């Protein structure tokens, strides 16, 4: 019961991020989403293993990442996402359609483990789709990083299906990748700022055929 409620809230927060144009509140919403995400392991299978994952996830996704992102936008002095590639309304409608498809596909797939919620697979798909839409429809480098992080949250939900089956190694891999990936991206964002005066990938169009 609680798990379903949390999953629905996670999707809801994802949609809010997609419809938002203020970078600051996007990061806050992402932090909130990650907080809810990090307690799902405890809801699925309470225990020491899940507890460790929860703590590590909170440290990385709720504390470290948002701090890094806030630091980056302060440096870049950017507050708004201007001119998205696809308008906000259109992205939301597209998101709704794709989510419906995700639910349809998930109902066709046989769930390997009956004990977990039937909402887990479709909501994981939906979060991945929301992240993907953010990634492709916005120009700001920071928004693209947020999109990537939201996508990683969706992948994390998939990994929860395998909570007791996958060795810890894979989970460390997931967390490590997010950590280093965004770190390098942050540094590059900083460089973009020095060279172009704004961290918008709209300026990154010298290279083309």
């Amino acid at each position: 019961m609680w798990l379903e409620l949390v999953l629905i809230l996670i999707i809801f927060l994802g949609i809010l991020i997609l419809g938002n144009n203020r970078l600051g509140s996007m990061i806050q919403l992402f932090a909130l989403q990650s907080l809810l995400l990090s307690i799902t392991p405890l809801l699925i299978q309470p225990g020491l293993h899940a507890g460790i994952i929860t703590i590590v996830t909170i440290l990385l996704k709720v504390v470290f990442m948002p701090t890094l992102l806030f630091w980056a936008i302060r440096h870049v002095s950017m507050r708004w996402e201007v001119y998205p590639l696809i308008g906000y309304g259109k992205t939301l409608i597209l998101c709704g359609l794709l989510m419906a498809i995700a639910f349809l596909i998930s109902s066709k797939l046989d769930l390997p483990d009956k004990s977990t919620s039937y909402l887990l697979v479709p909501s994981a798909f939906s979060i991945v789709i929301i992240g993907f839409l953010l990634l492709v429809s916005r120009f700001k480098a920071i928004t693209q990083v947020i999109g990537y992080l939201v996508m990683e949250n969706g992948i994390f939900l998939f990994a929860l299906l395998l909570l007791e089956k996958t060795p810890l190694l894979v989970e460390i891999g997931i967390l490590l990748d997010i950590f280093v990936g965004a770190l390098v991206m942050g540094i590059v964002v900083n460089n973009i700022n020095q060279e172009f005066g704004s961290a918008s990938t709209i300026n990154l169009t010298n290279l083309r055929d």
Partner: protein
Amino acid sequence: MGLFLLVGLPLLITVIVFILKQDKLIKLLCFLTILIHLLVTLSFWRGFQYVSFNRFLGLDAISQIVLTIISILFFVVSIYQIGYLSEKKGQDNWIFIGCLLSLLAAMTLVTMCRHLGLLWIAVASTTLLSAPLINYFKTPQSIEATWKYLLISSFGIALGLLGTLFLAISAISLKTLFLDDILNNAALLSPSWLKLSVIFLLVGYGTKMGLAPMHTWKPDTYGEAPAPIGALMSGGLTGCVFLAVFRVAQICFHAHLQEFVSPIFILMGILSLAIAAIFITKQKDFNRMLGYSSVEHMGILVLGLGLGGGAIWASLFHAINNAFAKGLLFLVSGNIYQYYRMRKVANIQGVIHRFPLTGTFLVLGLFVISGFPPFGMFYSELLILKQAIAAQHYLVIWFYVIFLAIIFFGYSKIILEMAFGKPEDNNLPQEIKKENIFMIMPLIILAMVLVFTGIFIPDSLYSLIDKGTALLGVN
């Protein structure tokens, strides 16, 4: 011991490089480390059989092929960097060499993985370690290229992780991601999750490999990266990711999903050839042309996997020759850039008159990558064509021949113009540079390697490729 020398030593030396930071010393250290890596790799060749380090790591025939490619490429680059890095000093160089060595460790790890989760971690780390190398010049263009590379590759990597997770779900009755366990119990995998997993893995790793339509980062990155990095990426890194794709094919073939996966491979292959054919003919920049050329050859590799039978042998053989040919051409492009300081083909004319050695290798490179008869690529491209005819894929034959012809025309137009065109006096650099011995020696080594892998194929190489082909259950 071998394991420590292959993965641990480069990592250890990376730390030392970051502590020492002395230009001459770190270059020498880099060279020695990679020399040891090469010697250890070559020592595995004597009477090769499956080497297992532990449950997670081991070397089978295909790993050995890719590992040797990587080791030789890094070896020539370690000679090349002595001359190439002589212009910049200090921080840029020690970051460069440090990343180079840890990239070697990561790529070696990719070849040895026997666990699909670990394989994914290793592939992901190669992306992160190569990003600072691409951004060596720190110009606006190279930052743009690095950003595109990071974003698109990370996206591909994320899809690859999803694919790996789906594979774990399909193997839930086995509760494992070890390659050997999955291959031995392929019949127990749940087909619907496996199909989903294969699609995600192929798109994910395909992005990293640079297959059309996920190739868009490739010309930008190869165009802006320093030449030795271009050589390592187009020869070594794509080879590593090809290995990951090969593993996916291995699982599919064992699970009797060949009929599901072959059309995907063929489609990706033909599409890559088409993209390369369209963009190579009107290319004005030599390095970007090499990027599209890499898209073409990756297309041929997966096309070979898709056609099956003898084409798989050809595909592995092609991977070897492509790696060294790309290495040769990228290093030539680095030399040309050092002499001319220009990238546009129109400004680089008459290389063979002014820099005879570099010019000779440029023309040699043309013969190799366009698949001229004495070289290995001619043989592998012909074998793939033969398999397509035998399997009666008429549409594939038609497209394959047409696109290869167009691409050949594009290569010859650009490279012959650069080699034999009439040099204009007004765009001469002020000082005429001499050809640096450290930047010519790697070219000679690569040309010799190409002769051995393409023309006089040693028996050990022949049998190793046979063993690699047998991994897919094909004779």
